[in-house]
């Protein structure tokens, strides 16, 4: 998808109304203004991370689901903290046997999920992920193409994630629609999501709503895939953030030119945070889809927001850029770029670059 088409999709796809919607959901449950701002920004960041895998019609319902999940997590954390605040030291000791139990649970879930896969798919997946066979070798063996093998692996992984979560959470799916919906979310198949009305289902099915978070907001099962989270408060963080971002990007096969474009884009957005917002955060991590790897960058700030995102994305207009270059330039540096902004609250910029073969 071209940059222009993608940006148009973001801006006309109802993304502009998301912050207000999320705020309504969050504000109906908690009072503390700072906590509300944080939760709205966190929800936005997660929705935007997942948007590449979601059909437009599912963005708003997914935002509601994420906000609800975060609210209950926050609420649970508060309660737990209050209950255990007086014995924090005991807690750190006690966590070890719990960790072991958790690990046992996880391997049980993986085994059970693998058992759900068709024999052929399971063997291909293991040959690729465990034995490290290249997709081109696997294609030669099966008389197929590397692209077709990669696409099949993508579908298999999507299936595995769903089965793994079901086994881990010991969820029983209440309807026939549940599994196909979860598969379409996990695989990022937008057309299928529309056919199934995945959006509508998320809102009415608590089981699927609960699983949609881990399915969409995930570190794409990538062995080296680490996420860097850089707090942004002062101009020193500009250099720090772009150096850290470049390090993460260097883990995959970006050209030196692409590494420079990425570092420059990070430098610009982080500087915007420093100049125009109170503080913010940058997250950088390696992502992959069916056939390629890339870098995902999410910058969010707590600040004034952008009054008119459309105008801010036009060349020569510098509401947010100050230096007259700003966001249109950054968009040209990346393959994918989108913004969600809430006036008086903050801005979230999500951008990605793919490794070009």
């Amino acid at each position: 998808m071209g940059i222009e088409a993608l940006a148009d999709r973001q801006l006309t796809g109802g993304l502009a109304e998301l912050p207000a919607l999320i705020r309504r959901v969050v504000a109906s449950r908690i009072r503390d203004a700072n906590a509300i701002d944080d939760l709205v920004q966190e929800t936005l960041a997660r929705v935007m991370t997942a948007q590449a895998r979601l059909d437009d019609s599912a963005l708003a319902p997914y935002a509601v689901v994420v906000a609800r999940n975060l609210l209950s997590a926050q609420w649970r954390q508060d309660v737990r903290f209050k209950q255990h605040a007086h014995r924090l030291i005991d807690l750190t000791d006690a966590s070890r046997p719990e960790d072991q139990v958790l690990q046992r649970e996880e391997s049980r879930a993986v085994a059970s999920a693998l058992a759900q896969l068709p024999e052929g798919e399971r063997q291909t997946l293991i040959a690729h992920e465990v034995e490290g066979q290249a997709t081109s070798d696997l294609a030669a063996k099966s008389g197929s193409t590397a692209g077709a093998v990669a696409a099949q692996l993508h579908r298999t992984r999507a299936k595995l994630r769903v089965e793994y979560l079901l086994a881990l959470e010991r969820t029983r799916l209440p309807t026939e629609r549940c599994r196909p919906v979860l598969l379409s979310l996990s695989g990022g198949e937008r057309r299928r999501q529309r056919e199934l009305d995945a959006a509508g289902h998320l809102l009415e099915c608590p089981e699927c709503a609960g699983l949609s978070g881990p399915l969409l907001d995930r570190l794409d099962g990538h062995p080296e895939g680490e996420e860097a989270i850089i707090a942004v408060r002062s101009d020193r963080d500009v250099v720090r953030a772009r150096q850290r971002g470049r390090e993460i990007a260097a883990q995959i096969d970006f050209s030196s030119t692409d590494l420079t474009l990425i570092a420059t884009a990070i430098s610009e957005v982080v500087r915007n945070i420093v100049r125009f917002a109170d503080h913010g955060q940058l997250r950088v991590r390696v992502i992959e889809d069916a056939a390629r790897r890339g870098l995902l960058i999410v910058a969010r700030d707590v600040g004034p927001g952008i009054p008119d995102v459309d105008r801010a994305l036009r060349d020569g207009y510098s509401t947010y850029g100050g230096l007259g270059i700003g966001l249109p330039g950054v968009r040209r540096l990346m393959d994918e770029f989108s913004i969600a902004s809430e006036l008086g609250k903050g801005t979230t910029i999500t951008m990605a670059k793919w490794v070009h073969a």
Partner: protein
Amino acid sequence: MATVNQTEQAHQISVSILRQGAYLIASIHAALDDEELGRFQRDLIRQITKSRSRGVIIDVGALDVLDSFGSCTLRNLALMARLQGAVTVIVGIQPDVAFAMVHLGIHLEDVHTALGLEEGLARLDELTGAGGARSARGSA
């Protein structure tokens, strides 16, 4: 001046300013944050005034990023140097960095640039009309 010496010492690892005849050669050796960049700008202008330099080379070969703020600072520096009677040539912009700047929409057309130090010095000779003064190079 004590303050100048102190500042020089404080970040001599990141930047250096050397005098060569009527020219100053300033090199940035590492990524600078905004404060360091601002200090570099002040130091360089002060040195230009003090030594009455006619030309300044700024070597940015070690920079892996020149974002809009960095470019803007360089452009301002050149302008301020001009007001002190010195011509500025920026040298050593890496090809990848230049590519990123173009994509970003940054133009340095009002600033002189050259490939490396040698070319930069030749360019300064040309611009200041000092070709004869540097006999080893000859006039351009």
